[in-house]
């Protein structure tokens, strides 16, 4: 993209940006996510407390001037745990989505370029991965291998690649018939060149949509797994494992600050990322928008 076409305001990217900006929920969501990311990055100066500092004399106190969101069962500051947990939740979301996108792009373009039995095999593999509920599989795998963040990130990414793989394969198949790709092949371009110069740029808009949705899904999955005690292990804080405490009626009733704040954090973050994905979809594919 040259700067001249951007200045003219008619390039696909600027048109997409204009369409994205006309999607109010998506724009608000971008602002919200930027704030969440900043809060996670500047967790230490913002919180004013050590997220792991135990203070049994201050256990289970409600929101106050010193502890804005109260303290948990061992007197740790909920706000600072919430901010530090944001790092883990966002990190897990981004890392697993990255695995899914890289794997999907590789397998999808290989399937599209080679065709034949390779294509059949990759697509059947995609079907199998898509038909299994990732949460249940990760419960089983972490049950046997023991829970760890790395296992979780790899497993989430492994179960999310098919969506991206199918899209990249579709783009590759339609590109393969184009004359400029034929010309590029005739002048000696190899598969890696085709991927870098033609497939990836063409697949980028739809892949950016599924990547965004994958981040949202991964954040929700991480929270659920950690809530079940199979994801991020204490004392490290994650939005999911902060809610594990809240499985007793007394906590739900009398200490709502313990479970409301991490629950709201994960719900709003996932919702915002999904809205951004929705806005991106309308922006890069005007046909899907009304």
């Amino acid at each position, binding site marked *: 993209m040259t700067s001249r076409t951007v200045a003219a305001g008619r390039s696909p990217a600027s048109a997409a940006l204009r369409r994205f900006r006309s999607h109010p929920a998506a724009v608000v969501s971008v602002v919200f996510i930027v704030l969440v990311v900043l809060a996670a990055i500047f967790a230490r100066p913002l919180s004013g407390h050590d997220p792991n500092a135990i203070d049994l004399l201050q256990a289970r106190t409600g929101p106050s001037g010193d502890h804005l969101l109260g303290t948990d069962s061992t007197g740790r500051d909920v706000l600072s745990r919430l901010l530090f947990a944001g790092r883990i939740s966002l990190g897990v979301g981004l890392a697993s989505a990255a695995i899914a996108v890289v794997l999907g792009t590789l397998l999808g373009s290989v399937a599209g370029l080679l065709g034949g039995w390779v294509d059949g095999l990759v697509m059947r593999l995609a079907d199998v991965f898509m038909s299994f509920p990732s949460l249940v599989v990760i419960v089983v795998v972490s049950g*046997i291998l023991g829970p760890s963040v790395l296992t979780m990130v790899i497993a989430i990414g492994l179960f999310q690649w098919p969506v991206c793989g199918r899209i990249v394969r579709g783009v590759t198949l339609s590109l393969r018939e184009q004359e400029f790709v034929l010309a590029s092949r005739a002048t000696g371009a190899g598969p890696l060149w085709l991927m870098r110069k033609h497939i990836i740029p063409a697949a980028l808009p739809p892949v950016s949509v599924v990547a965004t949705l994958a981040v949202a899904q991964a954040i929700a999955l991480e929270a659920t797994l950690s809530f*079940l005690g199979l994801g991020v292990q204490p004392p490290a804080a994650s939005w999911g494992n902060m809610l594990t405490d809240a499985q007793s009626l007394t906590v739900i009733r009398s200490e709502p600050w313990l479970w409301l704040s991490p629950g709201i954090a994960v719900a709003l973050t996932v919702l915002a990322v999904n*809205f951004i994905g929705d806005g991106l979809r309308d922006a890069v594919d005007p046909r899907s928008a009304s």
Partner: protein
Amino acid sequence: MAAFLVRRLAINVLVFFLITIAIFALVHKTPGDPIAMQIPADQLNSGSAEFIAQKRHELGLDQSLLMQYWHWLTNALHGDLGYSLLNGRPVTEVLGERIGPTVELMGVGLLISLLVAFPLGILAARRRNSLVDYGATVVSLGSVSIPVFFVALIAIYVFTLKFQWFPSSGISDPTNPGLLDSLHHLVLPAVILGFGNSGPFMRYVRSSMITELGADYVRTANAKGASPRRVVLRHAFRNSLIPVLTVIATNLPQLLAGAVVIEQVFAWPGMGQLAVSSVNQHDYSVIVGFALLIAILVLLSNLLADVLYTVVDPRVRLR
């Protein structure tokens, strides 16, 4: 049609065997002596060294990995999944008594999600870009975005603690059993499970209806003077069901994922709760049995989707 189904069946059987290999590899990864998973704990503790060695031989544990896999698979297919490491009961029995409650929860949850998804999806498709359509989109995004465990905690806070309308744990009250009591316990878990799954279903109903409402035969039906209600319900809706039904079938395993979480929060004595507690208590033989059961469920729902596809869409039958 037969050729299509036979090919799909063959693929599913092949996939099943690949998955059993993956599960066996996991079994091999479990800490401890594999023989502990295959004979009851009391025999293991009281048995002499010779007895254990003989059992080891009978179970094929002294043979090659390939033979071990074969023994394990044939036993599993005969319903012998070994014994729980926790209480020595046969895994098939432990799993078996948990299937009923989970099926009950999933069935009612599915029903509720469809009762939400169909009317909302059809309405949103008929009035595209209206307030209804926008509201339906927000509801569906909310249902996929808000984690089910958080919805469950809020529901317990509001409906159990504040209003005391519904119980928050268990499947029935032992002091006062009966149909009404069971339904009373089912309401919160099933509604929450249904809500969590209604979003994706609604989106499929909506997009499928939009496709059908734009088709030529709908224009014909309108032109010949059929009432709008008849056009939507008798013409477009029936055709829009084709993709939606297969989506519902392939989504059954996702429903189970929701049930795993909900059973945990509501102490619902189903498979999901069993799986999570087995994981926490390192009861590997039960975890492996659960994994096998999930693989069967996933492949059965894939097959169901294929069969539904051929039954409701005559075009597939002709292929």
